[in-house]
């Protein structure tokens, strides 16, 4: 088991290196001179050239990439071109906000999505089922920025219940989390419903009913556990995506997360920040996937037995 985890962690290293190389290449080969962007349109060309030299932009691409990797391994991701601060400081200062937002959204999606999905599976073709179908369609079709603005208009401006902007207290995270949760929630409802329906029709459920097991017990003990694998996969994938930040939602609610940091850095060609933040997001994506795989082991004895034997 531990060996498996260790192997998976090792496999992440080439992925991260590959990502860093691709990004480094893209940031360098796309047009736009960071030195000119930093100094502005009124700077003298000679000053711009000097800054390019200082930033090491005139050196060979591979030499620069090599240097970058060497420093990165030692934990030095360079300095932000724009802010003049260590990149690790810049990126890590934004990350907790994104983590809070993604966690909030996931909690909402799971707490609402799975029960609603189960109910609409159990009560298939009833009003509840139709309502859940309709609302999940609605949730997926609403663009995030629109939903966000509508929530602000309703709950902040009209009802005056919640603050419109900011990230100071947990109250600030309610509306952004709901907005971010919307799409995942919809997927989760549909996913839970369809897998539950599949499982409910299985022979062992019929057997359980036949031997007189209680309805609730059948649903939660027999059906849900068996339906859980794909649901957890969906949760994992979406959580990974959300950890990458959401530019639109961060913008609408004025939350300084990692998504807006990445976009701003791309615009300003602040390569060190782009690289570090994307690598962090990729790493987290990998870790979340790993966590999902480990959860499989606990949920599904068949998978567990593979590792116990092997």
């Amino acid at each position, binding site marked *: 088991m531990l060996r498996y985890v260790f192997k998976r962690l090792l496999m992440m290293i080439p992925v991260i290196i590959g990502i860093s190389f691709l990004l480094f290449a893209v940031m360098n080969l*796309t*047009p*736009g*001179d960071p030195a*000119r*962007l*930093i*100094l*502005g*349109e*009124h*700077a*003298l*060309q000679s*000053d*711009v050239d*000097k*800054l390019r030299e200082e930033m090491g932009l005139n050196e060979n691409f591979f030499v620069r990439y090599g240097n970058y990797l060497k420093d990165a391994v030692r934990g030095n991701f360079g300095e932000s071109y*724009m*802010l*003049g*601060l260590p990149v690790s400081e*810049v990126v890590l*200062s*934004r990350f907790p906000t994104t983590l809070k937002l993604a966690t909030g959204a996931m909690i909402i999606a799971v707490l609402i999505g799975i029960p609603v999905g189960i109910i609409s599976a159990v009560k298939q*073709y*009833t*009003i509840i*089922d*139709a*309502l859940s179908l*309709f*609302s999940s369609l*609605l949730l997926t079709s609403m663009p995030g*920025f629109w939903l966000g*603005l*509508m929530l*602000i*208009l*309703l709950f*902040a*401006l*009209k*009802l*005056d219940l919640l*603050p*419109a*902007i*900011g*990230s100071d207290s947990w109250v600030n995270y309610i509306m952004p989390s709901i907005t971010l949760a919307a799409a995942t929630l919809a997927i989760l409802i549909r996913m839970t419903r369809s897998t539950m329906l599949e499982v409910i029709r299985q022979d062992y459920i019929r057997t359980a009913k036949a031997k007189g097991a209680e309805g609730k017990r059948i649903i939660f003990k027999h059906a849900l556990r068996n339906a859980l694998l794909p649901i957890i996969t969906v949760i994992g994938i979406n959580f990974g995506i959300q950890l990458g930040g959401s530019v639109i939602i961060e*913008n*609408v*609610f*004025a939350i*300084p997360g990692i998504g*807006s*940091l990445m976009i*701003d850095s791309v*615009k300003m*060609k602040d390569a060190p920040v782009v690289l570090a933040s994307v690598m962090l997001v990729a790493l987290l994506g990998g870790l979340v996937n790993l966590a999902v795989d480990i959860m499989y082991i606990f949920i599904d004895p068949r998978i567990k037995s593979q590792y116990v034997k092997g």
Partner: protein
Amino acid sequence: MKRKSLITVLCFLMSITILMTGCAGQKTETSAPAQVEAVKKDNVTVVEKSDLATLDPMSATDRRIPIYQLYDTLVRDDENKAGEVIPWLAESWEISGDGKEVVFTIRDGVKFHNGDTLTAEDVAFSINTSIASPYTQQMTSSMESAEVVDKNKVKVKLKYAYGPILGCFTCPETSILNKKAYEADKEGFSRNPVGTGAYRLKEWVKGDKIVLEAFPDYFKGKAAINTVTYKVIGDASTALVALEKGEVDVVVNPDQSARASIIANKDLAFYECDANAIQLVSFNNSKGVFSNKKLREAVSYAIDKEAIIMGAKEGVATSVDAPILPNYAGYPDNFKGNPYDVEKAKQLVAEAGYPNGLKVKMKTIDSEIYIKPTEIIQEQLRKIGIDVEIEIMARGKWMEDVVTNADYDITFWAIVAPVSDADFCMYSQFHSSKTGGNGNFAECKIPELDELLEQGRQSQDPKERVEIYRKACNIIKEESVLVPILLGKRQYATNKDLLGVKINPAMKMYSHDWSW
């Protein structure tokens, strides 16, 4: 069963619609309790569209509002007379007979945020730092050096006599810094600024907000409002909702489309003035199709400025003819550009050697300010047989292509002139010494114009300067170096209870003047 669920779905749909239309209504009564608090407020929140990179005015290229609160300059713009200045940190000044030296007398007893008293040493150091900085060249390229004369006098030596020199000392690029603090930690200064300004830094949460607190020992007296917060809100609609709700108090340059509803809102105040930026069409005068003068001229006749203002700026902009801002020192009154005349333009295109029309690429920055007018210009040029393909690019790419390499035919952009003087609109854009990535990316090389621009910046006689710049504008018009189109607007939307707010073209915003 099926039908029943359909009805339910419809009911649900209707209730959602009611809910949504309900909240689309504009004003509400619920903002009343927020206003009761507002009366006793001693803080104010200003929206910034993005975070600042630095609070060190010597290593920033953009003039950002917090900088005006943290630092003072030697002189300030005279609100009543454009182009004139009033004493600030400098009590008085004297310009030598040849115009190549300025001696400032520094006010006594001004305190820095760290408790130090302002000395001539600090002033000379700040100016020399600015002269050496590659970021601030627009303001300091005329200066040679600054030196301490005595305890409260500083002499600034210039490379050449320079008419608008005092204006250069109104801008953040020449802010006065604390020498001791700057030398002790140059890198850290951008996050721990020490100035003499009305406010000092209390807290900076990167990407989120900057909090300033009133400096009790400010030389003009402590500010009425104790705390000023600059809150980063990237989304324009959110900023306005936050303003209506009372969570923020000032929105700078709100969305153009929201202008009418802001003016109609009784809880808000709206301030507006012309911007200090001339939006214009520029050509590459030396290379490519537009090195053909007739073709440039054709474009100047083909552009209908009013149509651009209506179409791209919702009718809220001022059309301009000269490449100099109106009421700037040196502005030639009643200067007229080429009129809108499609027939003449068509004829000129034919004379230029393109009877069947031609295709050009127009590079523009990925921003609504530039894209909308570019699209209308595209349509206007189509009428005279110039088929424009718009190439929208990121700011970085545009700067590299256009500013650095002059690799373009035609573009739409803006001259921003931070000092109220014709020289700031003209010299770096049109003087041949500024070609090759130094500002003159129109690649305009006209010896006669060079001479006028040199005379204009050195002359101290206002009337003579107006005549010089009139001649210069005429040459630019004759040669159709570029086509000035319009001035945008500077706008503030504020809580109506916030008093003392003043707007100016350069958006020099001083919160010291404000009160509730």
